[in-house]
């Protein structure tokens, strides 16, 4: 056989072997390939057949080599390192004296986790799909059936075998369930705070709707804006409000996110001070909502208009002379006592 043809056969087979050794450390890979190249040349010199025929498929050849050399396939790169770290952590944990008992307990508690996971994911899903129901959907019959179905599915997945993509999916779902659990716990906590805060909220619905970080009226509805008027019914603008302690009075904790009674976000354009900080207690707040235009389907800004107000009766006579400008002031009592003449 021509030496060059022989070299080609070796090089081809060697290239295939290299593909299956990609994960090795480069120095080690070079060493291994060097050694195998010598061996392949010996084989090629003695046998004219293609090396695949003599030695079998490269994948099997490498597998046999790795198995006997003790070179387990540990992928390199960030993923490989992560996997190696996870494995070593697992090994360390297993070596602990308390590990068997903890592991046994964890195995016993698995059904409890599967149940919790099902409930939490079902609740999270339902409240995400129907945010306006404020959780009532869970207490409805279909909602409860959905929760039961989710728990059943979670138990079935937990009890079954899983490998590959399914295993990865289950890990993802578990992470989601954990996040949802902490979110629910946080929600429960703020709910109680809010009930304490306004003393009137009647449980779930009102507490959620008033958004605990927002100023509420006595009925639990959120206060979305403040419109000051003069006693003549004249709307005032650029009014700075402070509470009894001299603190700027803003409607929401962060001063930016305000929700109406239906849970819709009302966006605010604050005027800014010299330092660029929004002035959150300058009223009335310039507000708008983002809505979808029914015709074009585009999202448009809809400025919030001032509400229709009713002045206290005793003031009506004076107010009747006020110019009926924006916002519409229902101050023109028709049969009010004439003030003129």
């Amino acid at each position: 056989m021509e030496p060059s043809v022989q070299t080609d056969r070796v090089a081809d087979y060697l290239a295939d072997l290299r593909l299956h050794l990609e994960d090795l450390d480069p120095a080690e890979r070079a060493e291994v390939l060097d050694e195998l190249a010598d061996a392949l040349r010996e084989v090629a010199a003695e046998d004219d057949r293609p090396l695949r025929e003599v030695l079998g498929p490269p994948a099997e050849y490498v597998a046999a080599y790795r198995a006997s050399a003790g070179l387990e396939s540990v992928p390199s790169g960030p993923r490989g390192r992560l996997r190696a770290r996870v494995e070593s952590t697992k090994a360390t944990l297993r070596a602990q004296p308390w590990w068997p008992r903890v592991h046994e307990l964890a195995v016993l508690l698995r059904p409890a986790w599967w149940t919790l996971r099902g409930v939490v994911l079902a609740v999270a899903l339902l409240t995400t799909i129907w945010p306006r129901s404020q959780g009532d959907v869970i207490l409805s019959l279909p909602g409860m059936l959905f929760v039961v179905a989710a728990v059943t599915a979670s138990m079935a997945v937990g009890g079954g075998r899983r490998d590959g993509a399914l295993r990865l999916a289950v890990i993802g779902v578990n992470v989601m369930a954990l996040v949802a659990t902490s979110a629910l716990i946080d929600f429960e906590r703020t709910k109680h705070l809010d009930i304490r805060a306004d003393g009137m909220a009647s449980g779930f619905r009102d507490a959620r709707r008033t958004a605990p970080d927002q100023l509420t009226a006595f009925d639990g509805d959120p206060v979305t804006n403040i419109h000051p008027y003069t006693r003549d019914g004249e709307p005032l603008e650029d009014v700075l409000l402070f509470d009894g302690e001299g603190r700027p009075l803003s409607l929401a904790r962060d001063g930016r996110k305000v929700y109406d009674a239906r849970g819709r976000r009302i966006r605010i354009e604050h005027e800014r001070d010299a330092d660029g900080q929004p002035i959150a207690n300058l009223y009335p707040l310039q507000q708008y909502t983002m809505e979808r235009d029914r015709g074009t389907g585009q999202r448009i800004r809809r400025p919030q208009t001032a509400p229709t107000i009713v002045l206290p009766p005793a003031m009506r006579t004076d107010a009747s002379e006020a110019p009926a400008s924006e916002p519409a002031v229902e101050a023109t009592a028709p049969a009010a006592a004439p003030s003129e003449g």
Partner: protein
Amino acid sequence: VLDVAVLAVLERRDSYGYDVVRQLREAGLVQVGDASVYGTLRRLFKSGALKSYVVPSDEGPHRKYYGINAAGRAQLESGRKTWHAFVSAMSVVLEGEAA
């Protein structure tokens, strides 16, 4: 088992990878794969049971030779004992069954 076989071959004389394969085949271990022998050589070398050196060759490329060292000999001895114990135990079992 392959460990002991490779060590035994190298106990007779130092050799390079393909030569070890050839000797094992000549001894009757025809099923043994090239790759398994090379992998075993690498592992034994890394574990300190073998020494290694390169010998220039006139006909072709340089060859990497392996030789057994003290640790390798100890491992071989222990392997031999285990093997003999296994073989005699198996003989008793098999003859006992045959009887």
